[in-house]
């Protein structure tokens, strides 16, 4: 137990973040509830509508399909993820290769919209590699979305479980090896019980991810039969764009309820973390107690690699093909005359979008680091806000951005910022700031208290002690939090779709703020789009993710440690 003293200087560290959350998260949650009782007139004014929006639920012919689809995602994606992630995590730990770990992580760190486009290009029955072995139309049913969801979330689930396996104490590993436990039985009797908090966290995170699937549905909408794969998140976005604001608010309220339940599970999984042991002993003893042969591990690994790297590999090959070969039937796999022409095109045509994404990413990075790092320090070191504030941060961490969509649009509309960089810079921290705080919090929790104490004794108050001594001596972690912040901004899709409508005008004052993610996601389906240029744009959009993974390479598993919180 430590003594907690919150003086005004400590409060000043966390105050900006607190104020931000009040304005941009607490208000929108309330504002959305108000919207459910309103409707938009033809002139665009909002008038009271009583409970008519709620009654619309009963007459909506699509709502049953939409809810069914949402449930399909929620049930299938997490289960498939876990079934695939546990063996993969175990194999990755066994072979202990940092390069392979990083490669396998790529799908979860790249923009989801890029992922969806990459799949779409790879599975094109005429121009994609599937021409040779599976020449069918893949985008006819919901399962294609499930596959894309799994592809995007499997690496993260694997990483969280891998982190759990890596945190098994060395003595336990040694004891089980002295006791002769190996292979499957060791996995069941030692690994699973010890990493059960991580497995639970991975389950809940993938559940949240799947429940609010958006990007793949958005990208593939043109190909799919109508409503095939539409879930609540995408449906509410459609309603919003159709101008049916009140009904969209009702759908969002339903999602808020759903996400609150999921967030509760998430917070519990993250903050409890006492491994459960005995149950697995009996089940585990039924498994063979021998190490899997090396060749089998190798074969399994190749299958995983094929699945996880296939779409990225294809867009990489596609992006360097000369234009004449891009629409060749049968498709050219490996071009003998590589060109960078598509990259030049991507940069020239995508430039306004690229500038917007960079400007917004930089702005969000500054805000989230300047607000997040001091708040995290005040929480971790001085106990600011106690467990309540920590729970609130985790709660926000797990909420999908879409539930803040409507009131934030209203705010930005009211202050005339729609379709400007500022709308995005001010609103992205809703989902970026909790992540930055969480990363910094986890680091500062183990940061030696004496640096700050020495600074206080040397005459600095807790506020200036943070900015003069703590921040400069924790730059490596702040850099990771900053990169992470940039990465989330970079891949964001819903907020820019809602808050912008045209690309940057390339003059001053800047106007128009459509992002690179829109450039990638919204161009597919247009007849004019060139696959080569699209593939090149996708590769460009991977750069921040690769950079982040590279910087985190030595602490990747430590970032996802779970449990053991003193609160």
């Amino acid at each position, binding site marked *: *137990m*430590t*003594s907690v*003293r919150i*003086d005004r200087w400590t409060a000043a560290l966390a105050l900006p973040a607190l104020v931000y959350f009040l304005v941009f998260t607490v208000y929108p949650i309330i504002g959305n509830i108000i919207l459910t009782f309103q409707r938009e007139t033809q002139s665009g004014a909002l008038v009271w509508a009583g409970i008519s929006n709620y009654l619309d639920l009963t007459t909506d012919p699509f709502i049953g399909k939409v809810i069914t689809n949402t449930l399909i995602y929620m049930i299938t994606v997490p289960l498939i993820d876990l079934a695939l992630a546990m063996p993969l995590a175990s194999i990755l730990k066994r072979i202990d290769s940092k390069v392979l770990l990083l490669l396998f992580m790529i799908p979860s760190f790249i923009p989801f919209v890029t992922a969806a486009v990459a799949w779409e290009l790879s599975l094109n029955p005429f121009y994609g590699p599937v021409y040779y072995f599976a020449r069918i139309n893949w985008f006819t049913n919901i399962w294609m979305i499930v596959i894309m969801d799994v592809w995007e979330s499997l690496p993260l689930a694997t990483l969280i479980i891998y982190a759990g396996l890596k945190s098994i104490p060395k003595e336990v590993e040694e004891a089980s090896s002295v006791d002769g436990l190996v292979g499957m039985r060791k996995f069941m009797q030692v690994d699973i019980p010890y990493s059960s908090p991580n497995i639970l966290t991975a389950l809940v995170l993938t559940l949240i991810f799947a429940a609010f699937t958006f990007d793949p549905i958005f990208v593939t909408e043109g190909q799919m039969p109508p409503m095939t794969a539409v879930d609540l998140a995408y449906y509410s976005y459609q309603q919003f764009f159709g101008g049916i604001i009140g009904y969209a608010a009702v759908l969002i309220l339903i999602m808020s309820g759903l996400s609150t339940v999921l967030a509760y599970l998430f917070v519990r999984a993250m903050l409890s973390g006492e491994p459960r042991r005995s149950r697995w002993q009996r089940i585990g003893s039924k498994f063979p107690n021998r190490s899997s042969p090396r060749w089998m591990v190798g074969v399994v690994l190749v299958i995983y690699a094929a699945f996880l790297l296939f779409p990225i590999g294809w867009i990489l090959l596609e992006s360097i093909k000369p234009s004449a070969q891009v629409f060749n039937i049968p498709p050219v796999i490996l071009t003998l005359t590589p060109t960078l022409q598509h990259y030049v095109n991507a940069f020239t045509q995508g430039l306004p979008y690229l500038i917007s994404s960079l400007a917004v990413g930089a702005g969000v990075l500054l805000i989230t680091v300047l607000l997040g790092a001091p708040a995290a320090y005040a929480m971790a070191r001085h106990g600011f806000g106690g467990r309540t504030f920590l729970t609130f941060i985790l709660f926000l961490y797990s909420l999908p951005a879409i539930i803040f969509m409507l009131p934030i649009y209203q705010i930005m509309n009211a202050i005339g910022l729609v379709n400007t960089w500022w709308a995005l810079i001010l609103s992205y921290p809703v989902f970026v700031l909790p992540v930055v705080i969480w990363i910094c919090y986890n680091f500062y929790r183990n940061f*030696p208290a*004496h*640096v700050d*104490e*020495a*600074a*206080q*004794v*040397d*005459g*600095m*108050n807790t506020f*200036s002690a943070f900015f003069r*001594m703590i921040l*400069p*001596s924790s*730059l490596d972690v702040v850099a990771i939090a900053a990169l992470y912040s940039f990465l989330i901004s970079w891949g964001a899709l819903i907020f820019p779709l809602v808050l912008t409508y045209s690309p940057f005008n390339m003059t001053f004052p800047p106007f128009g703020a459509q992002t690179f993610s829109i450039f990638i996601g919204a161009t597919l389906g247009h007849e004019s789009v060139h696959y080569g240029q699209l593939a090149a744009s996708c590769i460009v959009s991977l750069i921040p993710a690769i950079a982040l993974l590279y910087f985190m390479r030595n602490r990747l598993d430590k970032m996802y440690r779970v449990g053991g919180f003193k609160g």
Partner: protein
Amino acid sequence: MSSFLTFSNVVKRFGKTTVLQVERLDFQKSTYNVILGPSGAGKTTLLRVTAGLERVDEGKILLDGEDVTARPPWSRNIGLVFQNYALYPHLNVFDNVAVPLTVKGLPRAEIERKVEEVARILGIGELLSKHPRQLSGGQQQRVALARAIVKEPKILLLDEPLSNLDAKLRVEVRSYLKSLQRKLGITVLHVTHDQSEAMAIADEMVVMNNGRVEQKGSPQEVYRSPRTLFVAGFVGSTNTLPSKDSQLLVFRPEDAEVVDTCDDCIKGTITAMEYQGVNTILHIKVGDATIKVLDQSDMERKEGQETWIRLKRVMRFSRDETIIRDPETAWGTKSP
């Protein structure tokens, strides 16, 4: 002499546990004070409430005539050397030492002058451009000391300053600390759990146990005239024997001698011998108890040998472990 640092009725709790309870404690200016106690005695907490890093729950702390109880650390003008030195990892030695001065906003030239002066006093002039990780433990400690004294604090707090040094360096540094204190005329509070370290350098020692002050006094007073059985046992080694009137007889190994015969003596059997060079420590079984006696004679002893022990000086403690003062002898001692 008026007190420079005063604690009155200070209480500090962590949750429901009271970790510090000091009714009255005074320290004089320009003295070297050592706070001694086992771990969990509250000595580090005493240091931290002095620095302001912990806030007391009750009571008052007066420093140089001012009530500093509610003051945060940054406005107390205190120097503190942390147990692990707590140097700023991203600053070089010069910048580390200069931090307290830059915070005060002194002009650059004056900062340089003061840092160089203190570096000269502490012999770290050559290290000024190095980074903390390039320094040895002893060097880091000097840098931490320099940082603590460069701002000319009212009081210098040392938290277990010798615990991270090896045994040989420890003896060297402790006399260095004392001479530094003499040279600067500063008031020092030095926390340790090592009683020989405390005895060697303290002007005044404070023996603490369970969050309370057991005794304060010069090393001689504390050693020769411990107020409680705890102090007697913690400072120096002691033997304890029950007496007929349900009191405890306590004496130090050097206050007993082995004799061939005497009237009023205790009888025992030698069970072990520790040869020390100058003298020998004899383990002697007396009844159910085993006592240690410092034998300075050249007589040949054997294990298993029966012998007589004469007590030259004895302290008597009552059942509640406080000393019973004998009005006839100043030290509260008497032959049995």
